[in-house]
């Protein structure tokens, strides 16, 4: 059988101390195909790609290019074999122009001077050929994330790479940009380029890939033809069991208003202007309101303003009839606000504290846990054990496990346990499932819905449109610090939302705080 494989990774095994990240994995990439690599977090996708890109050396296994065995010792070797990669976190120099970034490392020089003219011609040519719109002279710091990604793609093309690796390329894009990227990928395929597409979003695989290789816990599960399979089957291969995609939930029965925000303004963390520019909305008991939007449109600052991490510069915040605009973080917490923070390592946990110490992070001062300034260690232990059992937080040594030693999913579970057990009137959850695998996501979603059904108000901030559509009872779209639309998830499509998220459309009466 003479299949035309451009890259073959055969029986790759890569061990790290205590863990086999890749255990006898085989991946064969045909010439001119889009091959998806699917797996949960920690399944070994990134390790495998790092092996291909020369960042790690495998203990066992061989890599073949065009049927001939090759050794890839570093990324330069990979480059010479025409392998290019768009990393999940872009590798761009912020203060350089687009053109500078593209030629960086492969500059043509004459007598020590850069030959910009020829480079510009090539870049513009490539950009037109593949429909990759970029402005060669713009600074990276000034352009959108979508355009930054196009710059990364152009970098590969400029180096005449034939094998293109995309590591979770859609995480930062709007639905429209995702469609565009899919078209670009199909264009490459037509040109005879081969693509490796790493993702855990099944719908994208179904849309664009020809074949898919699935990894689970470092092991090779199988390779399937996309036209012979279904989403359900793929997810079962990935997780090892049946997964519920949509959240089971009854219709919301919202009652009294709990959180009322009027004309709120919050300064930006990065520049001098306000990042939240006069936002008004309500959240009622028994509903999940979701703030949707592309990263960096003021959602983070809005949450900082609501929780008191940043002082607001204008407007009012009312929680259950009490004005908390100028209240301290502790007072807000006492008034019934819980906060599952966006960054669990920065805000959510003291990583060097034990699990039990983290469980009382918001409440150590309560008489239940302390007596005249002395911590009641036995009460803290009992409480932590209770939460660990109720929320199934798994760790090596139970309450005395250092938080740093726990897995991301269990760290997040610990935070959620802590925040939900406060019995909050308002639960603010920011990206609660970021970076978690399907099983953990399923659990966290069910917990949020349970909170809603208890009659609590939930404010969810999410960048994942699937999550937004699945969980929310009401959607508010944020664009450049303003609320530009309010929707009922049952009556709106993802495409429609995407237009608002990208700023192409705007409702005139949105963000005025009128609850429909």
């Amino acid at each position: 059988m003479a299949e035309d494989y451009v890259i073959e990774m055969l029986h790759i095994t890569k061990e790290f101390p205590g863990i086999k990240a890749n255990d006898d994995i085989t991946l064969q990439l045909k010439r001119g195909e889009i091959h998806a690599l699917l797996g949960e977090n920690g399944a070994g996708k990134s390790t495998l790609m790092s092996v291909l890109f020369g960042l790690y050396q495998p203990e066992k296994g061989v890599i073949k290019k065009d049927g001939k065995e090759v050794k890839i010792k570093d990324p330069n070797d990979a480059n010479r074999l025409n392998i290019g990669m768009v990393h999940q976190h872009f590798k761009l120099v912020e203060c350089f122009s687009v053109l500078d970034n593209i030629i960086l490392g492969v500059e043509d020089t004459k007598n020590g001077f850069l030959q910009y003219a020829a480079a510009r011609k090539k870049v513009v040519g490539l950009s037109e050929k593949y429909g990759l719109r970029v402005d060669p002279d713009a600074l990276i710091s000034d352009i959108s994330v979508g355009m930054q990604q196009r710059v990364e793609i152009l970098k590969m093309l400029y180096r005449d790479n034939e094998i293109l690796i995309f590591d979770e390329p859609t995480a930062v894009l709007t639905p429209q940009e995702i469609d565009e990227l899919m078209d670009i990928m199909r264009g490459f395929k037509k040109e005879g380029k081969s693509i490796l597409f790493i993702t855990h979003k099944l719908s994208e695989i179904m849309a664009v890939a020809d074949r898919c290789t699935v990894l689970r816990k470092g092991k090779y599960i199988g390779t399937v033809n996309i036209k012979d399979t279904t989403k359900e089957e793929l997810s079962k291969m990935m997780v090892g069991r049946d997964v519920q995609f949509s959240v089971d939930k009854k219709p919301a029965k919202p009652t009294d208003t709990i959180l009322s925000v009027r004309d709120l303004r919050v300064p930006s963390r990065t520049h001098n202007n306000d990042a939240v520019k006069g936002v008004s909305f309500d959240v009622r008991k028994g509903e999940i309101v979701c703030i949707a939007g592309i990263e960096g449109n003021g959602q983070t600052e809005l949450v900082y303003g609501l929780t008191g991490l940043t002082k607001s510069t204008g407007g009012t915040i009312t929680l259950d009839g009490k004005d908390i605009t100028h209240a301290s973080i502790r007072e807000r917490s006492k008034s019934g606000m819980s906060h599952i923070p966006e960054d669990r390592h920065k805000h959510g946990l003291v990583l060097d504290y034990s699990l039990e110490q983290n469980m009382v992070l918001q409440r150590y001062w309560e008489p239940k846990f302390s007596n005249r300034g002395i911590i009641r260690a036995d009460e803290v232990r009992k409480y932590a054990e209770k939460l660990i059992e109720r929320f199934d937080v798994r760790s090596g040594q139970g309450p005395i496990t250092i938080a740093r030693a726990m897995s991301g999913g269990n760290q997040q579970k610990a935070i959620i346990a802590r925040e939900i057990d406060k019995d909050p009137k308002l639960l603010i959850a920011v990206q609660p499932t970021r970076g978690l695998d399907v099983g953990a996501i399923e659990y966290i979603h069910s917990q949020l819905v349970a909170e809603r059904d208890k009659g609590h108000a939930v404010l969810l901030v999410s960048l994942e449109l699937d999550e937004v559509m699945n969980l929310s009872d009401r959607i508010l779209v944020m664009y450049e610090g303003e609320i530009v639309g309010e929707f009922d998830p049952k009556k709106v499509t993802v495409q429609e939302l995407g237009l608002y998220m990208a700023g192409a459309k705007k409702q005139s009466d949105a963000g005025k705080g009128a609850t429909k």
Partner: protein
Amino acid sequence: MKKKSIGDNPAVVSILASIISIVVGLLLGFILLLILNPSKAGIGISAMLTTGFSSMDQFGKVLYQAAPLMLCGLSVGFAFKTGLFNIGASGQYTMGAFFALVGAIQFQLPWFVCLILAMIGGGIWGIFPGLFKAKFNVNEVITAIMFNWIAMFLVNLLLANMPTMLASAWGASNSDRTAALAKANPAAVIPKAGLNKLFGNSSWINISVFIAILVAILIWFILQKTTFGYELKACGMNKEASRYAGINANRNIVLSMIIAGALSGLGGGLYYLAGTIQYVLVKSILAMGFNGIPVALLANSNPLGTIFSSLFISFIQVGGSAMQPNFSSEATDIVIAVIIYLAAFSLLMKMVLSNLLKRTGKEDKKA
């Protein structure tokens, strides 16, 4: 085999690592002595290792010097736990000594009041780095270094202009140092409580080492058992998360520096109120505060560990001074520095050791 490997017990590993580091340091110190003066190296190292135990008098001196070291170590370690590097222990120590001496000589106060004054003086000197850090995010290291110099020159300036403070006002001829307390105010001398009888009439020994140990236990209690300690440590490990938890991180930074300052200040009080040493007006920063840094490092900032690390460092310092006819004081300082430096490698040693023990533990289980 159900026996637990010793590698599983982190306390054992820590102590073992400290001991190994110390032994390696002594070995290197010995090699250095061999290079400097081969014929006397043996005498030198044995002087360093035995002087502290050679007589009750010398042992008394070890204990006496350990007290201020312990407090400076506690000061640095306490600030470390809160995420601050208190390099200003020296300035706080100087201010503490100054406040204590002014109380003792100028105002004729008894010793315990002078010790409280010492804490106030050190605490005041801790406010500045803390406040600048909290209010303007100025790195505390920079402020503290500046305040070390300010403290030294300010104290020298003030003492030079306070005639009653100087030895010349109390029947002695020299005016470059403060008055001997025995003459100026015997009530300000820290009591010996009969310890001098026990220590063969040692002129050094007094109750200061016990005061220091009590303070160490108190600091351990605060850090380990109280909500205040919980807050301080949370701020030190993750300032953002402690803010998220509603802890006033800025207030805690200032408080932590005040406490650290008060500890160093108390150290200064204990040292100069013993009555054996007079404060000399020289233009160099007192080394005691800086020696607090290795004391804290060696103890991994653990207040109880500080008790032992300060005794150890005091011990080799006393031993070092006994080497002096054979080796110059600079040479002994270098050897002491090498030993302390390597002792501070205990953290690294701890890592190596726990890996090693784990590996052998595994093999044991296989066998």
